[in-house]
């Protein structure tokens, strides 16, 4: 981005077409930003609005009244929330570190032109995006043979490998001049040492980009928790939220079929408050990481 910025500031004369382009661009970006920002503001202001107001007047940009009701309910059992935060952070940190390390190492190997089987191995990974066992078979296998039930590994392992990330990472590795590797080899460095001491330090923007993707993937995942986690103390935050959101609908469905009454339902404001709590700190990660990943790459195909 930095080199782009320099041409832009030095060379651009405000020609007519440039003015037209700038107007269109700013309008487009502002419109899009509003479209992205407003729902978010509605979500936050809704979480501070009382239940009755939401029910009768719907969501609005500015809160029509102000109450902490919903947050009081969310935090009436604070240890539950903090524990869920703990699980989410643990899974995201461990998963991202392990995933980054092994993904980068794999990407490095399949980017090496002198490694004969690089394309076969790439395809071996790619094939799993076309074919998979599906929810049922995977579930049975994980529980019955891998004994992943109620095990945090069930949240970490399945998201460690992602072909899309692997391809991006390989593009980052490819942009490192092969001569560096050659000269290190001549100096007598082993492959693993070359990877650790020469390649990894040069991959800052790649690590930042994929690290962000991995972290977000872990943070937003509730699906694996739904399938494999049983005890509440191991619920990650997103699943806790998802569970609360689904409760009302599910209970109503059951009530319509079994002859029972429904009481004590979570409310709209509560939904939004939970969403705010669950998004919380992760949202700050993006601007923080942003400055690292603006380096240029061209994502390549499966074959190298």
């Amino acid at each position, binding site marked *: 981005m930095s080199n782009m910025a320099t041409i832009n500031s030095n060379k651009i004369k405000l020609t007519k077409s440039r003015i037209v382009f700038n107007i269109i661009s700013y309008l487009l970006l502002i419109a899009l930003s509003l479209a992205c920002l407003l729902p978010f503001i509605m979500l936050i202001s809704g979480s501070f609005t009382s239940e009755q107001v939401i*029910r009768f007047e719907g969501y609005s940009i500015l809160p029509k009244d102000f109450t902490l009701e919903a947050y009081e309910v969310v935090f009436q059992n604070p240890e539950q929330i903090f524990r869920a935060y703990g699980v989410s952070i643990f899974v995201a940190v461990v998963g991202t570190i392990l995933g980054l390390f092994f993904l980068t190492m794999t990407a490095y190997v399949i980017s090496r032109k002198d490694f004969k089987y690089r394309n*076969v191995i790439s395809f*071996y990974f790619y094939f799993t995006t076309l074919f998979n066992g599906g929810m049922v078979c995977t579930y049975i296998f994980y529980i019955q043979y891998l004994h992943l039930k109620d095990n945090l590994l069930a949240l970490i392992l399945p998201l460690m490998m992602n072909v899309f990330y692997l391809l991006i990472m390989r593009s980052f590795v490819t942009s490192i001049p092969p001569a560096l590797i050659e000269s290190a080899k001549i100096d007598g460095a082993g492959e693993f040492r070359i990877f650790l001491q020469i390649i990894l330090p040069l991959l800052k923007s790649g690590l930042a980009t994929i690290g962000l993707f991995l972290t977000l993937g872990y943070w937003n995942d509730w699906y694996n928790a739904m399938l494999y986690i049983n005890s509440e103390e191991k619920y990650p935050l997103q699943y806790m939220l998802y569970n609360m959101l*689904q409760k009302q609908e599910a209970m109503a469905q059951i009530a319509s079929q*079994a002859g029972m009454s429904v009481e004590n339902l979570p409310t709209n404001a509560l939904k939004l408050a939970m969403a705010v709590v669950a998004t919380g700190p992760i949202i700050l990660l993006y601007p923080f990481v942003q400055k690292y990943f603006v380096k240029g790459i061209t994502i390549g195909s499966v074959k190298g």
Partner: protein
Amino acid sequence: MKKRFAKIAALLCALTMAASVVTSCGSKDDNSGTSGAKTGELDTSKEVELSIYVIGDRPAKQDEVEENYNKLFKEKLNCTVKTNYLSWAEYRNKYPLLFSSGEKFDMAYAASWLNFYSLAQKGAFMNLDELWPTYAPKNFAQQSETAKEQATVDGHYYGIPSLYKTYSAYGPIYRTDILEGTDWDGKMENLEDYETYLSYVKKEAPEMQPLSIVQEGAEIDELFMQERGLYPVKGALGDFLWLDPTESNPKIFTYYDYEETPEFLELVNRWNEAGYFSKSALSNTDTTEVENGKAASRIKNMGTYEGAHIQHPDWGFKFANFVSDVSYSSFMQDAFVISNTSENPERALAWYDLITSDEEAFRTWNYGIEGKSYQIVDGQVEKLNLEEYEENPLWTARTPGLFLRVFGSPADIPEMEASYDEHIKEDQGCQKFRAFNIDTSKVETEYAACINVHQQYWWPLELGYTDPVEGLKEYQQKMEAAGVDKVIEEFQRQLDEYLKNK
């Protein structure tokens, strides 16, 4: 390239094969669960931990409740019980998977709406033919013949039905406070009266939706059919097949075969145009519109009425039953099953017998700790600290006599129930068909396809969203393409057989 690809394909193939070898070796020792009962006394010398799956979220202070009831169970049966919750977000995906993963657990909540019949047929539950009478004799003795027949699949018992009676009574739950001081006559005996009520609400309380309808289904159609004395073949709502119980050899039919359907469609079109319910009802998921004051009425059962009344005693909620021939709802709407992987089915049944027959055990299991999670007021149970404790969601363990009404429940419910009890005669009217369980195994494909077509074409039709004439034609055409005739033919055969043995 082709060659390389062939190589890769061969490799992948080999991997998959290897996988099946690995997995098939592992699966050999799965089915070693106990089968067949030993006669004689229950041996309680060894302490065991029983585990049960129920549906719901684990209440915050469940540990406390668990400790409390385990003291009792340990003393009575030398066992403890661990409750596992399948939470609201996951039960739909995970419930059938639970029985396929080979996980060792003892008991589970089951229900007809959780596909009890289909699961039982596919071998998900343990056969209880001998175990049930032997180890849960008190429970077995209390069961009605109808209930036992309902629990029978392919000639065997696979589940224990609930002892609790619920009724097929169905109709509007409506607020009367909003029409006070108007000239509304308060009559509510049939759909016509209801239409009058809706028109008054529209006029007198325009800010309210007269009738709340959500995407789980409108149920006006089912009310219409049951008002005419018809019986849903499945024995529960949410289906498309009906029969007339007054015929001696009833023929199964569906909506487009029924002569009054055009009249029904006219009615809902009228209601739709008048704006009695939302035009986007099928995407509405807010099921509490009535309870939170956004809508004036909804169509549901007595349980919902009870809940609404307890929540808002001053809104003048009333319930009117439009089902002309009330019968007992299936006792398999809530049920209890033993898992195939259970190692202690005898103890599990003995335990179930205990909690469904012993008052102390029943209360510690269902209501929790007296004074903390519940108290008894005037023979009714008042639940306390609902955020921390909740009633145990094993809804099937509600034994009449032990199960108490919730504090604040409307006074007219016992009266209504008494009148239904008086009305219901075994082997007469709708009740005669209650023990008939449809077996979908032979037409599983067609039946699933029909349910799908029904949802896609009938639901919009029954709310007047599609043209009553053209829409009905299209519905019929799609149902026929999905194989409804084959489904009806098969169910008719089963029904004829059932009536022959009756």
